[in-house]
């Protein structure tokens, strides 16, 4: 008999009650997926993951998917209105929000036939400190997928047994799935270019000189 999976709010309080000192955050996700996830700090990730795997009510024994998200630096605009000398003035404040990388794990229970529970970790920034905890010691199946996230996003996994590139070659320096990745400029003729490809085509093949 399959046990119903506790809703995420309940799961969060279960986890925080079992592991004092571990803080988690509920990350909502808008429609259509509407699958909220649980974010844990990289320092707590291993303990939280072991709890989710071993707790008899949860038994999330399978990590089906690991993926990464790149959130680039962005600017946040806040508009405030104030009445100065009887005239309404609008001030716009632009705040720079530094970017970060996220790693998302989809967890299922094969023994209790429930899931998914979505777990997230977030790096401090996108530059010098992109380290999160590896969950390969908890779920063996994460090994290759964490290597893929390392290869394509540049997230370092502390505690990973064999953190090497898996798709690109050793000595490749870029992380192609990052938003600011610039691919080698090797555009070639395409019969029907459009959008970014059209811009590339225009740069590579200048228009013929106008006939007098």
């Amino acid at each position, binding site marked *: 008999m399959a046990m119903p999976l506790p809703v995420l709010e309940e799961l969060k309080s279960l986890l925080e009650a079992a592991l004092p000192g571990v803080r988690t955050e509920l990350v909502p996700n808008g429609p259509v997926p509407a699958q909220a996830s649980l974010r844990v700090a990289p320092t707590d990730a291993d303990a939280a993951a072991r709890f989710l795997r071993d707790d008899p009510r949860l038994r999330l024994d399978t990590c089906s998917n690991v993926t990464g998200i790149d959130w680039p630096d962005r600017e946040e605009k806040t508009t405030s209105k104030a009445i100065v000398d009887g005239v309404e003035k609008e001030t716009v404040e632009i705040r720079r929000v530094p970017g970060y990388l996220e790693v998302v794990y989809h967890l299922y229970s094969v023994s209790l036939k429930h899931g998914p529970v979505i777990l997230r970790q977030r790096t401090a920034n996108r530059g010098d400190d992109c380290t999160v905890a590896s969950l390969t010691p908890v779920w063996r199946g994460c090994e290759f997928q964490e290597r893929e996230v390392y290869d394509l996003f540049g997230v370092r996994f502390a505690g990973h047994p064999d953190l090497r590139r898996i798709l690109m070659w050793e*000595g490749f320096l870029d992380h192609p799935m990052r938003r600011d990745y610039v*691919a080698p400029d090797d555009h*070639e*003729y*395409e019969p029907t270019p459009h959008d970014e490809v059209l811009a590339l085509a225009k740069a590579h*093949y200048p228009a013929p000189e106008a006939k007098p």
Partner: protein
Amino acid sequence: MIDEGLKNELAKQGVVATSLQELYNWGRSNSVWPLSFGLACCAIEMIAASMSRWDISRFGSEVFRPSPRQADLMIVAGTVTKKMAPQVVRLYNQMPEPKYVIAMGACAISGGPFKQGYNVLKGIDRLLPVDIHIPGCPPRPEALLHALIALQEKIAGEKLTGPNRPRHLRADAPSEFPVPEFGPHDLVPPKNDALWKPIPFVRAG
């Protein structure tokens, strides 16, 4: 040289007249041994072509050799990623002359649906001399058989002497091509400029 009309007349009387060139090319073109080597889904069609339904052995090419030293033909069947490209060129270099290349499918001839990707070579003809291109995604086994017949016709039409003789009879023509290295951002060099000379293209508007 024997006259073509006389040759036909003799053939009707049961006398076969031929030349060494014809005999040599006839033998070569009917025993093209491919390298057993596949890169992606096109390889499944290549395998189907070698099995009983399409039966590539009708054309003398059923002997898929697992060693490049014994193969005459490289069928590049599938997507050539940049990570795989040096190995493909190295395999080609290990094949003895005379050797031929069939680029099978959209990916092998142009990069196909992955042409705009960062990790896929935009066609194996950037690195190797391709004799026959087969379009399709993937091409059916019949298309591969057609390509093989076209290659046989090409081999049969080769002149063994004179300025247009094939590469394996010319001491100055290369039989090996440079293997690209893995660079920090791309293959180094990304293509063989001595080999790949696209037609200059001018945008219409």
